[in-house]
């Protein structure tokens, strides 16, 4: 209905292959960016940044990373939490050991280290598939946090066992306030999301999706499964590693290194199932949804006059998540992103039903 596409014809391939081929979408997206970078800073409170927006950005990035692996390449992983831990611990180590290093370089290096670790744990994917692989990634999930604690060098033998992120200093810009931290995280996430979109719409993405959709056919047209799967693990882990570093540096501030547990892994998995497997947008929608739901569950029943204990709310959260996962898998396996896309399609062909 809002789309008026007639007369928007493409005269070049580069226009035909753009991320947003429809001008209305471009405008909408530009508006969203404007809201994110300018609108929100005008209105949001510190509480909104620290309780919602910053964790949202960090976890979106982690979900995005997992989505590359699971949604695009079809390799299930339950090790997201541990890989975020790798990124956080790596970034912390680099930043404290080389204090003057530019923070962006720190994050990039942390991402690469995570990528290397991810590839290592991805090796079994060359021989096994599906839930076998999920179990293999559980090994990472249980082994790595143990390693963070037991290998003292990793935490600089901190007696408390707690690692605390240094100040954020990016090219001399000190990001101290929640707003600044938010803007920093937003910048990183926006850039990486763009890169991810570029990846999935060109050669690497096609390789991954080919492996996901029909691995035998993919190999027969010349895709090397080893390369496709390991790059998926590497890129995915890079994103998750950077997400972990952000999580520590921007959100938590300090943490015990074994705080990157399996619940984070499940959280990320739920984000992409509900948000949409194989969709960049879905990673964000899913993260938003999963973060907002507990807040909703905590706030809404009291408003309706039900006074629920925190324990009950926590249990309810489990139930709702569980039920939602099943519901989405049954009704719309491609999640919120697909619903969004359907809504968009409906608007594009309005008033027709198809």
């Amino acid at each position, binding site marked *: 209905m809002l789309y008026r596409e007639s007369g928007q014809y493409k005269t070049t*391939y*580069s226009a035909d*292959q753009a991320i947003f081929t429809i001008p209305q979408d471009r405008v909408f997206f530009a508006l969203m960016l404007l809201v994110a970078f300018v609108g929100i800073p005008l209105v949001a409170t510190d509480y909104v940044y620290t309780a919602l927006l910053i964790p949202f950005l960090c976890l979106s990035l982690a979900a995005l990373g997992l989505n590359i692996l699971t949604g695009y390449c079809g390799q299930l992983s339950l090790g997201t939490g541990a890989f975020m831990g790798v990124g956080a611990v790596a970034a912390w180590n680099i930043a404290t050991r080389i204090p003057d290093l530019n923070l962006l370089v720190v994050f990039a290096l942390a991402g690469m280290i995570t990528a290397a670790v991810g590839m290592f744990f991805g090796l079994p994917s060359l021989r096994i598939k599906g839930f076998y692989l999920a179990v293999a990634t559980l090994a990472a999930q249980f082994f790595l946090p143990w390693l963070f604690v037991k290998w003292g060098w990793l935490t600089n033998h901190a007696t408390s066992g707690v690692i605390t992120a240094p100040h954020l200093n990016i090219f001399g810009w000190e990001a101290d306030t929640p707003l600044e931290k938010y803007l920093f995280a937003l910048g990183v996430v926006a850039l990486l999301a763009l*890169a*991810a979109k*570029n*990846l999935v*719409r*060109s*050669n*690497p*993405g*096609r*390789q991954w*999706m*080919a492996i*996901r*959709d*029909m691995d*035998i*056919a*993919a*190999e*027969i*047209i*010349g*895709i*090397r*499964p080893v390369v496709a799967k390991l*790059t998926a693990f590497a*890129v995915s882990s890079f994103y998750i590693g950077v997400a972990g570093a952000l999580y520590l540096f921007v959100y938590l501030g300090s943490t015990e290194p074994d705080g990157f547990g399996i619940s984070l892994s499940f959280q990320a998995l739920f984000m992409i199932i509900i948000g949409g497997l*194989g969709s960049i947008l879905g990673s964000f929608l899913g993260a938003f949804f999963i973060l907002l739901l507990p807040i909703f569950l905590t706030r809404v029943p009291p408003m309706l006059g039900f006074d629920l204990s925190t324990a009950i709310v926590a249990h309810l959260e489990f139930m709702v998540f569980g039920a939602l996962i099943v519901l989405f898998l049954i009704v719309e396996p491609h999640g919120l992103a697909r619903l969004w896309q359907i809504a968009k399609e409906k608007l594009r062909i309005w008033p027709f039903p198809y």
Partner: protein
Amino acid sequence: MSSVTEKKIGDVLLKVENISLSFGGVKALTDISFEIREHEVLAIIGPNGAGKSSMLNCINGFYHPQQGTITYRGEKRKQMRPHQAAKQGIARTFQNIALFKGMSTLDNIMTGRLLKMKAGLFSSAFYKGPAEREQIEHREFCERIIDFLEIQAIRKVPVGRLPYGLQKRVELARALAAEPTLLLLDEPMAGMNLEEKQDMCRFILDVNDEFGTTICLIEHDMGVVMDISDRVVVLDYGRKIGDGVPAEVKNNQAVIDAYLGVQH
């Protein structure tokens, strides 16, 4: 047409010698030898379970025969994986359509083109510049295939939504995107109606004619086989029982008994 020039069938492109293949003691292929010549259309026929698909699987490296050798372009081939065969210019389609269901027609074909593309992770992530130029250059090539196979109307449609006949055509397009030297088609016309079959025959002949692609196909429809193939190899119970031009094979008693007799 009266004055259409004869196409030139060249040297031996691929030679299969004394291939035997078995799965856990069950013999799928026994001592098979034949050759595929450049630019020809070779049909492999035979009753169900004769080992036709297994033969293609050996040629493109999916199965590894226990005995025998395959010589490709004059070189004796070592055991290889399918993607290596693809790199050498062997493409194929499948009996049961094996498209990438989550992608559009165009993306499927572009994926078939990956072998010819170079952009790696970093330039792809950056996209602008070399990666985009490469995408555009190969998009144009893929568009020519789309044009060739007359599937313009469905280029942006997810392949899962396409009717069967069109899916088969997209699969052929994907195989062609790799500009193969040798194209293996596993029952390209199975399950098609008469009109779709005629279209597919035309496309196969056009591919063979236009690009000089050597084609080795498995087909059940004897009419089709007789019409479009230059030579026919007949398998039965994993053994070769006939090999020759269509007319010869049609009159070969062993073939009639084993194949035609069974079918009719």
